[in-house]
């Protein structure tokens, strides 16, 4: 490492205080309120605790297709009115689907809070009142185009799909892509929609955050007014955590319409918040976080045989994966990159990283906690994070506990995690190569 004369900056050590109140409606809906009056906006953020992991083979992509249907109107909202009413009030909205959850948010000026709660509650309580097979067909076409745009017509877009198929065995809920397979999207039916809604969209399987420029007592009354009549139903049976083990090296090469080879190395790693998960975030930083990180410095800066390199712990509820991705420069191969990557992983497995490397990563992680609380609404805003922490830990304000996971780490933890979780002989090796011209 570089010999730098730089005083150790005082760790900010400020407590991240995101005050909230929490209550539960009789129908089982958990509600979390958070006040932030910096701008006159509120966010209504709903998480349903279901994602693609709950799908069955033959109906992959269904949780995400269902998410699209949630914007198509409900018992008291005609098709198109969800968006047009919100836009007329200066609002924005969106949703997203992952393996373990589906989230929805509405951002509105604070005067339109009740409109947002009305819309959110109407689709929770009355979605099926207006659902027709035609609605399903319309969004099926949109979702197929989403898949074309993000997978087939996207350079290297197929890699994520293949990677999960290689990491997880057939039948494991992370084996298939969130976006789904085309034939399964074709097969999805109106009857599937009814069954999925009844099984997974009960208030007891959801949590609602209302955050921003609100008065907590008034917001509570409005939530009770609009959500209390939503019918109760039991939540789905908890999922077992199915086994996924790599017992050796799995290697594949797939052609794509690209000019440069790209290498993906992936391991199965501890699930989100399990011991080792935070450590692997720091391992990723030591390997590829910034110009001085080991892989970047060697592959991109010194040897100049890679265009880019990244490493990350992709944390998820049932199992995580640790992924290293590197793109070869013209004239270089994925095998050359792999050789260097393996050298660096082996080195990290056998020698302690420097205190400076650890400190650099921790300082960046700590800053990211501040940056994440600048915005209230939308994806990754405070409302979304309160819901994420509640969903995963039961405690909406888990910011300090989360940060404490990192502050507790030592250099020997980093080395040990690299050794335990990144064995070179138990992993997935995927190369995307330029397609051979016919």
């Amino acid at each position, binding site marked *: 490492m570089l010999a730098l004369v730089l005083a150790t900056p005082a760790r*900010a050590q400020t407590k991240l205080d995101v005050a909230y109140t929490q209550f539960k409606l009789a129908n089982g809906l958990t509600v979390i309120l958070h006040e932030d009056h910096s701008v006159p*906006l509120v966010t209504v953020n709903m998480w349903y605790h279901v994602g693609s992991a709950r799908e069955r083979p033959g109906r992959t992509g269904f949780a995400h297709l269902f998410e699209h249907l949630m914007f198509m109107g409900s018992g008291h909202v005609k098709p*198109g009115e969800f*968006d047009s009413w919100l836009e007329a009030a200066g609002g924005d909205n969106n949703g997203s689907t*992952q393996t373990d959850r589906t989230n929805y948010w509405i951002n509105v000026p604070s005067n339109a809070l009740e409109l947002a709660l009305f819309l959110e509650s109407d689709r929770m309580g009355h979605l099926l009142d207006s659902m027709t097979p035609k609605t399903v067909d319309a969004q099926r*076409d949109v979702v197929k*185009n*989403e898949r074309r745009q993000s997978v087939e017509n996207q350079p290297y877009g197929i890699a994520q799909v293949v990677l999960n198929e290689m990491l997880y065995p057939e039948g494991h809920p992370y084996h298939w892509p969130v976006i789904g397979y085309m034939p399964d999207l074709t097969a999805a039916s109106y009857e599937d929609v009814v069954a999925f809604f009844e099984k997974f969209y009960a208030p007891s399987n959801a949590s609602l955050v209302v955050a921003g420029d609100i008065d907590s007592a008034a917001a509570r009354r409005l939530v009770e007014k609009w959500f209390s009549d939503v019918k109760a139903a039991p939540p789905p049976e908890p999922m077992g955590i199915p086994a996924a083990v790599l017992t050796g090296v799995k290697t594949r090469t797939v052609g794509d319409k690209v000019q440069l080879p790209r290498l993906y190395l992936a391991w199965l790693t501890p699930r989100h918040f399990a011991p080792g998960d935070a450590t692997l975030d720091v391992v990723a930083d030591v390997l590829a976080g910034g110009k001085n990180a080991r892989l970047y410095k060697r592959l991109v800066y010194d040897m100049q045989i890679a265009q880019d390199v990244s490493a990350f712990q992709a944390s998820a509820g049932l199992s995580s994966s640790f992924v290293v991705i590197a793109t070869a420069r013209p004239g270089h191969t994925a095998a050359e990159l792999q050789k260097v990557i393996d050298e660096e992983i082996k080195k990290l497995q056998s020698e302690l990283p420097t205190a400076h490397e650890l400190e650099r990563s921790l300082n960046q992680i700590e800053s990211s906690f501040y940056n994440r609380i600048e915005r209230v609404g939308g994806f990754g805003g405070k409302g979304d994070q309160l819901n994420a922490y509640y969903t995963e830990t039961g405690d909406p304000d888990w910011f300090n506990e989360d940060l404490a996971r990192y502050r507790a780490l030592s250099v020997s933890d980093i080395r040990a995690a690299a050794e335990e979780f990144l064995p070179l002989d138990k992993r997935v090796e995927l190369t995307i190569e330029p397609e051979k011209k016919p």
Partner: protein
Amino acid sequence: MLRAKCWVLGALLVAAFAGVTLVAQQPDRSHPPPVGPPPPLNLPAIQKQKLSNGLPVWVVELHEVPVAQVNLVIFSGSAAEPGRKFGVASLTAAMLEQGAGSRSALEIADAVDYLGADLSASGSWDLSALRLHVPVARLADALPIMADVALRPTFPKEELERQRQQRLTSLLQGRDDPATIAAVAFARVLFGVEHRYGTPISGSAETLKAFTTDDLRAFYASAYRPENAALLVVGDVKPGMALPMLEKNFGAWKASAAPAAPVKFPAVEQPTTRSVYLVDKPGAPQSQIRIGWIGVPRSTPDYFPILVLNTILGGSFSSRLNMNLREQHGYSYGASSSFDMRAAAGPFVAAAGVQTDKTAESLKEFFNELTGILQTMPADELSRAKNYVALRYPSSFETTGDISRRLEDALVYHLPDDYFSKYVQNIQAVTAADVQRVAQKYIAPGKFAVVVVGDLKTIEPGIQALNLGPTKKLSVDEVFGPKP
């Protein structure tokens, strides 16, 4: 704008059930609840100061989170590049961090990362900027590094070679991506090879290969000058604390040479007839479509009516293009339009990726909407669009980064002092007649350039049958120039 992103990063499922069934009183769902008067937005005060060398400093206090955003804005970007040195502005910006003062590229990156800071240098059409985001506790440690990078770059030769290879490889990769090909082709057919706007900000392989460190030094000396710059500070700071730090780091900055003569763009003509440009991407499951012509400069007096017009046409989820191509027909994941307003007139573009077997049908629907927008605007659509633009305005003042970007615009485009405070009333003042007038002035479906990147053997017959106008095929080399 697009709905429904997916992908990795999951969340743990913890469902607790309090199995109580209770039928509550039913709220009245027969009408949406009324929306009260919009809340006032108390715009943060801009405290305008100067350093001893005349460098303007604008400070906005925002005390919710202990972070600070400090931007050094240079009022020269890609549009200020002299003599076809396309790409020198963004390359100069990128090179600032590759060696400065006594530090090497690696040392700069290490020092910044170690502070948990983010420092980035970039160039766009009308400005270059060095932007620092840092926990406020480390601001005093980060500013000297930022000042070195801004004021004392060393432009090492070997770092230029690194940046050159990075950029040439990026250009090569751009040729893989149909959306990138479409965007580059669209600018090229509108503005040509001579006009700066006809080539991407990063330049072409030809220009990139020719740059020397002298080119970088020359652009730096002509553009990076205290009288051509300003500092913005937004965050958990007080002027009394920030100003002495900025004075210490930037107060002695003096220009090293004479300013550059202003660059004059070659004249560029609007298309007079509609033309179609096709780029082949064999086997592509979608076609990337770009339709439009040269729009307006940021200084247009029609700014507010154009914002409303574009919101209705393709600037919101409920816009006509998106409702037609996505929601009604399902041809696309999303369709949109935009006016890219720069110091000079940038492009107006309507865009979508559409499924290959519906390419001709999609083009027909694009032109239906581009023609339909010239008609009288229904009152409810107009008021929805105006509210959408005006009432969500507070969201552009939420974070330190948001506010700093608003201030950059105000500085670079010389917006009036009351610009932010009058924004909402300026939007609300737009009438149906205004929107129709600007639509008829700036939307000319009979003269637009149409670029389609897709599987020509499948889509060409259908496109030809539409008889949109003369058709030309472009190779990827004609779009990007020779392969790097």
